[in-house]
């Protein structure tokens, strides 16, 4: 089941208009069932601690989704997506404090403004390629972190920055009225995340997705085929920034209070590592990345194990991924399982041929 689902979103080239065969129906069914389970059963099964954690998983799945579009679809490496998330959260918080607009509208505005900022930063950055693009995004992320540490996040103060350092009773950032409690807000964030996944899926299935695939294969070839590479690269930046901005808005509502310490510089790098490991080429990889990034640390913390072990594991994971499994875990694990299955079947067959049960398997192993 997981196998077909993963292959659905894998990196392979599809015909432009896929026929709705049984595979597609199964995949859609699995995704829908999973979504329904997450929406209705999961909040009932989990303690409040894990509901909070799962909100973060939804947020970071969106961030990973945006980064996955850049890395996996177009081949642009950005090492500064957590800084973009911080920008989105800042904008959403500012609007939420300043106005009484409905929450979905604020999310949309946060996404659009972040998109504009991301595109403006992306425009000069697109002169660069490969390593230098990655380095300049690292620099920009560092710059944004320093600026946010100085301006602080809005806390209900006045003025453009909306920060008042002498405020004693800081009002919490509001949530939508229909999702004030944690389980309800969890459902809300899952729905937003699902919409973002659909948005990306639509992009991948249509013209931009094909243009991105061409650019990833070879930029000169794409150019020669008449694809406006700069335009589509910028489009990818815009889409990723929009999604990350929306995620920032959801994050702001989830935590109620924002501090620049919540967005440390190493998080952008850890995020990138996790997206690489989870698999940048698959949409499921984004969910895997979200779970790795937020759920596992919470689980370990609950067990009294330091989350630093995870950072170490992620580091090792990056090295292993780059040297052995370039498509990430969401791609590699099913492949390895399939290989293991084939191996076992082969052994069983050989064992049967030798009229042996377990002994035959053991002999076949040697």
């Amino acid at each position, binding site marked *: 089941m997981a196998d077909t689902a993963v292959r659905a979103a894998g990196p392979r080239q599809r015909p432009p208009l896929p026929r709705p065969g049984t595979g597609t129906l199964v995949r859609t069914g699995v995704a829908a069932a999973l979504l329904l389970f997450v929406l209705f059963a999961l909040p009932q099964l989990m303690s409040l601690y894990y509901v909070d954690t799962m909100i973060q998983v939804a947020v970071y799945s969106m961030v990973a989704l945006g980064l996955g579009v850049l890395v996996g679809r177009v081949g642009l490496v950005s090492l500064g997506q957590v800084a973009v998330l911080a920008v989105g959260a800042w904008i959403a918080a500012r609007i939420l404090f300043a106005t009484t607009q409905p929450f979905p509208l604020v999310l949309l505005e946060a996404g659009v403004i972040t998109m504009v900022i991301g595109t403006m930063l992306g425009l000069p950055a697109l*002169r660069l390629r490969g*390593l230098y693009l990655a380095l300049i995004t690292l620099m920009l992320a560092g710059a944004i972190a320093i600026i946010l540490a100085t301006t602080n996040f809005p806390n209900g103060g006045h003025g453009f920055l909306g920060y008042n350092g002498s405020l004693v009773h800081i009002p919490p950032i509001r949530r939508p009225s229909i999702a004030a409690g944690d389980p309800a807000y969890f459902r809300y964030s899952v729905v937003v995340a699902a919409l973002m996944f659909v948005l990306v899926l639509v992009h991948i299935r249509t013209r931009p997705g094909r243009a991105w695939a061409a650019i990833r294969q070879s930029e000169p070839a794409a150019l020669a085929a008449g694809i406006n590479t700069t335009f589509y690269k910028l489009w990818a930046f815009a889409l990723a920034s929009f999604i990350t901005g929306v995620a920032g808005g959801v994050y702001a509502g989830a935590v109620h209070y924002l501090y620049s310490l919540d967005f440390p510089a190493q998080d952008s*790098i850890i995020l990138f590592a996790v997206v690489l490991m989870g698999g940048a080429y698959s949409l499921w990889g984004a969910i895997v990345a979200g779970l790795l990034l937020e759920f596992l640390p919470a689980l370990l913390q609950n067990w009294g194990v330091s989350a630093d072990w995870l*950072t*170490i594991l992620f580091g090792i994971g990056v090295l292993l991924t780059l040297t052995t499994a370039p498509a990430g875990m969401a791609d590699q694990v099913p492949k390895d399982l399939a290989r293991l299955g084939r191996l076992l079947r082969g052994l069983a067959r050989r064992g049967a041929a030798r009229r042996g049960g377990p002994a035959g398997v053991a002999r076949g192993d040697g």
Partner: protein
Amino acid sequence: MPSWQDFQPFIVTGLALGGVYALSGVGMVVLYRATGVVYLAFGAVGAMGALIAWSLINAGSPGWVGWLVCVLFGGAVTLGYGVVFGPALAKRTPLTKAVATLGLLLVLFGVMDLLWTTSGGESRSITLPTDGSGFTIGQVQINWTQVIALGAGIVIALATGLFLRYTKLGTAMRAMANDREITATLGVPVRRVEAAAWLGCGLLAGIAGVLLADLVALDATTLTFLVISSLAAALIGRLRSITFTFLAAIVVGLVQNVVTPISSISNYSDLTPFLLAAVALLAFSRGSVLSRSREEA
């Protein structure tokens, strides 16, 4: 506007910091020229070396043992990484090679956070014996550590420049920067030359770790990400020129510190390396040296 008097001490600290950035930047340039790797774990290696040195000194060993261990640790870890992962990634793009060093960075970062927890709020520091004594120029106190930092930057930049120009190993490194395959065909022991570059870069990371732990702070995050300042300098030197890397490092160090007394922008002083490097990257991409280099195509 603060007066000239206010700026003087910051010029001294700026020059000292610039010296350390210079020796780090030079280390990164040498490694990049020989192996094509932008070593993003440079700061993390130095930071961990410094933390080990701190633990040793706290446990009662003499200071010089700690500093030596720090430098050797930098060399050992970097050489180990280079020997294990260098060949496996040799044929990949510069981007993949750089990202792989982020893996090392995360491993070291996790270990540091695990073993030397910062949650207790205890502050660690390494003090060199040269901190206490010094001399005065005008009204500015200068201690010997600052002199050593700037001096080390100058000496290492000079020595590396001469080494690359005149020695056999240096020539081999320059040849490998141009084409690894052809260099290997000519009979240069490619792996050994690469190992030498890794070792040299790692030793410099260790030296930078000790100096920065003394001059700035002994804190895993700070030291790990100070690598960006040196990286900025190396990028301004186009990851090629030792001279420009050195000059850029001094400028980054100076600007970052000299704006401190100007209260309106002092909070933003840490932006200096980011902005300078971003501008440099963009400006150079116009000359298309960076974006059309062979490895990038």
